[in-house]
């Protein structure tokens, strides 16, 4: 009897220990998330978009753009606002992986109800295999349920006073460097295609069903990038989009229509576009989505005054930067 009582007591103690640990993890997680939300300069670049999107007023974002660095260097939400009054946000991260795309979407849907989710397809081409895949998946799940793992480093700026300030407009990064791409045509027609990783397509299934549950349309886009795209990838992505009844827009096939000039519009030798390239891509992209999806023009609406203010600032900044870029091109 005493043994039994001892066992129960020990089991109770174990449960209590883990319950306290769970409570501490949850409490610290929400505390760190709140601290990061209050001042997003406390967190480093890669996690910024996740925090910033949580700071947006509830149900104010109509278009959510997800993806890796191609997403936040190619499409400018402020330009979309200025031209069409569309509210969009870029939940992009450098080298974003598909499970991160999924979790950013899931986190966003906690207080936003976008009408359209745009996924930059470079994330679909980034597959991991074996233990690395398992490791990434576990880490992302852990960080999703206990954000303390994601924001644990905020102690550093809090204690040492060094912050990680970064200029971004609804996730878009103003990049004004010019490093031309000189290697010529990169979308050479072929019947071959690459194989998408099952890991990626499994996560895409979850993304698709999450969007369908929330009545959200999905658009896959491939933004112009000679380093990251070719026809084999286009074939695979087109086939995937068709099989899953998703809209797909590959702008690499429309470089001429977009008026992309790789001498002036490339940021880093064809990997990303700079501000000049992003303006051209956003112009085309804006036209494309407004003609296909039912998106509201929020200009003048109550509650969107912040957008107006930020748009003005954006206009000023981009004007200066564009002028400087054009000058440097003239000088050669």
């Amino acid at each position, binding site marked *: 009897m005493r043994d039994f009582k001892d066992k129960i007591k020990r089991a109770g*103690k174990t449960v209590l220990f883990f319950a*306290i640990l769970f409570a501490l993890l949850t409490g610290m997680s929400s505390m760190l998330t709140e601290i990061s939300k209050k001042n997003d300069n406390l967190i480093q670049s890669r996690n910024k978009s996740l925090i910033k999107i949580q700071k947006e007023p509830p149900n104010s974002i109509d278009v959510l753009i997800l993806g890796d660095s191609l997403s936040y260097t190619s499409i400018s939400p402020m330009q979309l606002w200025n031209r069409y009054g569309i509210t969009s946000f870029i939940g992009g991260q450098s080298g974003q992986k598909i499970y991160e795309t999924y979790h950013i979407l899931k986190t966003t849907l906690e207080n936003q109800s976008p009408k359209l989710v745009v996924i930059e397809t470079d994330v679909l081409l980034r597959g991991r295999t074996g233990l690395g895949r398992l490791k990434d998946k*576990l880490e992302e799940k852990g960080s999703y349920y206990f954000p303390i793992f994601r924001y644990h480093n905020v102690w550093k700026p809090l204690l040492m006073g060094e912050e990680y300030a970064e200029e971004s407009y609804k996730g878009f990064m103003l990049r004004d460097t010019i490093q031309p791409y000189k290697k010529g045509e990169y979308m050479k027609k072929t019947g071959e295609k690459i194989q998408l990783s099952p890991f990626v397509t499994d996560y895409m299934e979850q993304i698709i069903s999450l969007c369908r549950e929330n009545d959200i349309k999905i658009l896959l886009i491939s933004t112009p990038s000679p380093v990251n795209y070719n026809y084999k990838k286009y074939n695979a992505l087109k086939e995937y989009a068709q099989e899953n009844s998703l809209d797909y827009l590959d702008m690499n096939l429309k470089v001429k229509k977009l008026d992309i000039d790789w001498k002036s519009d490339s940021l880093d030798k064809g990997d990303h576009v700079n501000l000049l390239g992003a303006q051209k891509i956003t112009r085309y992209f804006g036209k494309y989505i407004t003609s296909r999806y039912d998106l509201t023009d929020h200009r003048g609406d109550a509650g969107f005054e912040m957008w107006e203010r930020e748009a003005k600032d954006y206009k000023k900044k981009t004007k200066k930067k564009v002028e400087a870029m054009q000058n440097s091109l003239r000088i050669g």
Partner: protein
Amino acid sequence: MAYHTIVYLFLFLPLVLTAYQIAPRKLRRAVLVGAGYGFFWLISRKLVVFLIGTTLFTHYIGLCLTWLKQKCRMETDSCAPEGKSGIRKKYKKKEKLVLACGIILLLTVLAYLKYYNFFAHNANQLLEAVSVPLAFPAKRLVLPIGISFYTLQAIGYMADVYWEKVQTENHPGKLALFLGFFPQIMEGPISMYSQTAEALWRCDSLKGENLSRGCVRIIWGLFKKMIVADRLYLLVKAVFDHYEQYSGIVIAAAAISYTVQLYMEFSGSMDIIIGSGRMFGVVLPENFRQPFVSRNAAEFWRRWHITLGVWFKTYIFYPMSASALVKKWNRFGKKHFGKYITKLGISAICLYPVWLCNGLWHGPRWSYLFYGMYYFVILLFGIAAEPVKNGLLQRCGIKESAWYWKRLQILKTWVIIFVGELFFRAEGLSIGLKMFKSMFQNVSLHCLWDGTFLNFGLDKGDYLVIICGCLTAAVVGGIKERNLLGDGGLAKLKTPVRWSIYYALIFAVIIFGAYGVGYQQVDLIYAGF
């Protein structure tokens, strides 16, 4: 799947523990062997055949030795007393031959996989220098994970059977468990058959106390690895990769940082490994015992990578001490040179192979050989200078136990350790020598506050965490050294105090761990050996 990764700690280990506990006792051995081979396969894939092959080969060598011993016993029992010695000699010869075959084959496999290219490269250079038109082709050889560790364990087992320290089992499972226990595969500790085989074979049920002690040990290991070692990695890598850009204090700081990084990482991994073993009720031998309080290099090696030192002592040093060569020298030396030189000669004969093997064991690089020889010279010098030192101390009236003398000795040992690790970490012997020289050039303390140290990927916050982490480790080391908590360890403390320590440790790792944005996951250093 290193031991500090999320996949090992939150998936592999819990899964094996669960499978082990729910399996019937008889199947538990199979679970552990399967987990060991599974772990090996996940890292080295089909090279697991090397581990299986080594296990079977070692098992049959053991059986063969036992069979010879039994046969010898039977024959000596049934023969006349005057013939017994002859029979024993005959069988001893056969046993020696079998043991030699076993050791040579295992060492050949290890030498071929680990050292062939090193040998080929150096032999080709030599042949070219003497204009011999012959060249050994370089080969793409993949090393099975942990081969340097399990080979030593296997050789130790064969020698123990030969010396009748352990008995063989007909079932190869016990040996398979001993050589392939998954927490030990990557980095040791190099245990002896008598230390772990029995507990592994018993397969006791999991116990709450073992689980909790194991968990605490694992978290302590993560503390050392993730808070201190992985941060220092950034500084060490930055300086050692671009050593030509630095000199003076920066090089010295990098050597010290690497020593601390290596200790925190290797001993941290050991904590995780020993903690994992503890969860299954297996007490693995300790590999570290507060090495930085050592008063000389010999003591340091009794406290640093203990199981490797014990292995060399048991299987190389002692057999050498009892060898015919030493006996001959002893007789010759005493006759011609006196006691002092004879003792020094014996030490040199016995220590030289130990330190040559120690250097070689770490890998096929001249810098590792130099590292081994460095300690050989220092230890020999220590023995040679002992009478002079004792005489000086007596004349100056300094007691060996005086606190200031102890501190001075510890400081001297630190210098020896730091210099040794500088050569150990440098990418080659010539670079090590260059770095050593540059340590004495442009020596200026200015770099300590002009921001130089903020260019290595670490900021002030990181340095603060490193200092706090080292101080915590030093306090814990002090408590252990003085055995302040006794055998019960933390279990003796009251629950609220104990739990507060556990939570503090867990959250220290979570909050101050060098992981996530801005850091990179650092592979285990000793897994590369």
